[in-house]
């Protein structure tokens, strides 16, 4: 019997009396510290997301508040997935994604490789190279519109000067054929340094002794590059592609200021198209379904990619 009493007393005593006397318990502090962040994210990220999902099953329109809101099931999704215009914007986005990633990886890696030669002053030059990506994409995009002007623009003048064509004979943002490349050029100009920085971190993480061992084995420089440098940098490079891929899938500010999606719909990326549906045509329900589809696509692709990335890392 006394044993049981002791047991009960022990249980009734609140845990960690010592820490309570000396202040809040760790557990309470943990909650107080984490709660505001979680609350804010729930209120401004998750709650809106759930609301979007709900709206996506309705025909709600913000500009007609008094109209009946009807539950229309999967109709919005059906219409989006069978809409040729939306497939067109998906193609535009795919073109943009593929070429920006391709060029940025190529140029970004090459630059990192050169910077890693540790020439004098490489810190200074790296900082200068990084500048474009730190700037406001909307402000810079708007200014590139000026550089792309047929007569007076610097870009056309320089291209004309080196290729001998008349600078007023082509318009990068006015022609359906050239505009998709105009946005690729500006995005590459802006974001190549991002890939460079990450590759540089990868290159610097390779210990010298691996190359020294390869030298002793008389492996050629070319062979060292393909069997040491590339595989060791690959996980970093894939991380850069992941970050750039997500960002460019969401791309809005730079392109909307540069071309506004035009001419016609030649550069209408999904985010621009979505903005048109949601905030110009005010088809809220429809746009919500569109937003859900985009989010699921990004999330799905990113998850698959992260799995692949982890596999590369494990090797």
């Amino acid at each position, binding site marked *: 019997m006394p044993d049981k009493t002791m047991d009960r007393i022990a249980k009734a005593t609140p845990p960690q009396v010592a820490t309570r006397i000396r202040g809040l318990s760790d557990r309470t502090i943990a909650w107080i510290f984490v709660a505001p962040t979680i609350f804010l994210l729930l209120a401004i990220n998750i709650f809106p997301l759930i609301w979007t999902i709900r709206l996506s099953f309705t025909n709600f329109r913000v500009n007609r508040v008094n109209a009946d809101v009807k539950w229309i099931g999967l109709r919005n999704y059906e219409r989006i997935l069978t809409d040729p215009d939306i497939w067109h914007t998906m193609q535009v986005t795919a073109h943009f994604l593929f070429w920006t990633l391709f060029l940025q990886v190529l140029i970004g890696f090459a630059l990192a490789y050169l910077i890693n030669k*540790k020439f004098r002053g490489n810190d200074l030059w790296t900082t200068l190279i990084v500048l474009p990506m730190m700037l406001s994409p909307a402000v810079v995009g708007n200014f590139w519109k000026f550089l792309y002007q047929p007569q007076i623009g610097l870009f056309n003048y320089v291209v004309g000067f080196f290729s001998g064509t008349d600078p007023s004979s082509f318009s990068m943002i006015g022609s359906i054929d050239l505009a998709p490349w105009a946005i690729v050029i500006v995005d590459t100009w802006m974001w190549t340094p991002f890939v460079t920085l990450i590759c540089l971190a990868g290159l610097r993480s390779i210990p010298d002794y691996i190359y020294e061992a390869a030298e002793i084995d008389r492996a050629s420089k070319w062979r060292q590059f393909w069997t040491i440098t590339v595989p060791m940098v690959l996980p970093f490079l894939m991380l850069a592609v992941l970050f750039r891929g997500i960002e460019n899938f969401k791309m809005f500010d730079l392109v909307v200021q540069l071309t506004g999606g035009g001419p016609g719909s030649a550069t209408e990326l999904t985010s621009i198209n979505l903005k048109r549906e949601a905030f110009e045509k005010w088809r809220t329900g429809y746009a919500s379904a569109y937003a859900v589809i985009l989010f699921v696509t990004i999330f799905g692709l990113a998850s698959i990619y992260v799995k692949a990335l982890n596999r590369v890392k494990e090797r």
Partner: protein
Amino acid sequence: MSIFSITEPSGRQKWIAGILVAAYAVITLIPLLWIIATGFKSPSDAIAYPPKVMFDPSLEGYVNLFTTQTRITPDMEATLGEPDTWYERLVREKGMVIAGPSRYGERFLNSVIIGFGSTFLSVFLGTLAAYAFSRFKVPLKDDLMFFILSTRMMPPIAVAIPIFLMYRTLGLSDTHLGMILLYTAVNLSLAVWLLKGFIDEIPREYEEAALIDGYTRFQAFIKVVLPQAATGIASTAIFCLIFAWNEYAFAVLLTSGEAQTAPPFIPTIIGVGGQDWPAVAAGATLFLLPVVIFTILLRKHLLRGITFGAVRK
């Protein structure tokens, strides 16, 4: 490293690499230099063909940026008397008078208020959360951390629809508070991830020693951990500030009159017959310059900030 190391690039290789990188840097900086130069051109020089590299500097762009002007007839001008200031004179030469200040100053100030407000909040909340995630057994820690990261994957436009509705109901649309809360929520993910990395690097022994000395956990956090994390907190703050400073999508959709920041405003600066490029360039120069300075100051922490702490050096 000794100069005899076999992995050290040869002098010639260094030279070639240096020249190629410098050439790339020069080419990539031309658009930025062109923005700065255009801000100091007269409107006719700005749209001259061929583009002018050498020009007579003029402050017309800056005057146009900060003022609104109206055209006056020569008769009226005769009644006005001599202009008092250099900028008044500059405007008068075009047959105009200054009617008042433009909205650029307000927009710039909005950017400052919203940028610093949201930076302060996200760093404050982010430090607390990061400390908890770093030191305590928070249930579902990994899931929560991933949840925080995944909020960054949503396209801003997709979240903007319900936020637009929510803010309209709560009366937060087009207010400083609304934008500060929104940018804080977006920046929190970056802040928590980065700061957790920084705090993880501070040895626990310091705090444990403080606890043994009779500090409470909270005192130990304030007096031991915070000073140690100061550099990390400062660089996180600058990254949050740069994001809020540059953000465009939410700003253009959720603000119009009161709380509009500079990025949606600068492209709308128009003069007679189209965009007034010197004024746009002047506005852009003033707006981009702080970021350029921060980037140079921050160069050592750049990588960590832009990759969510995923890559450390």
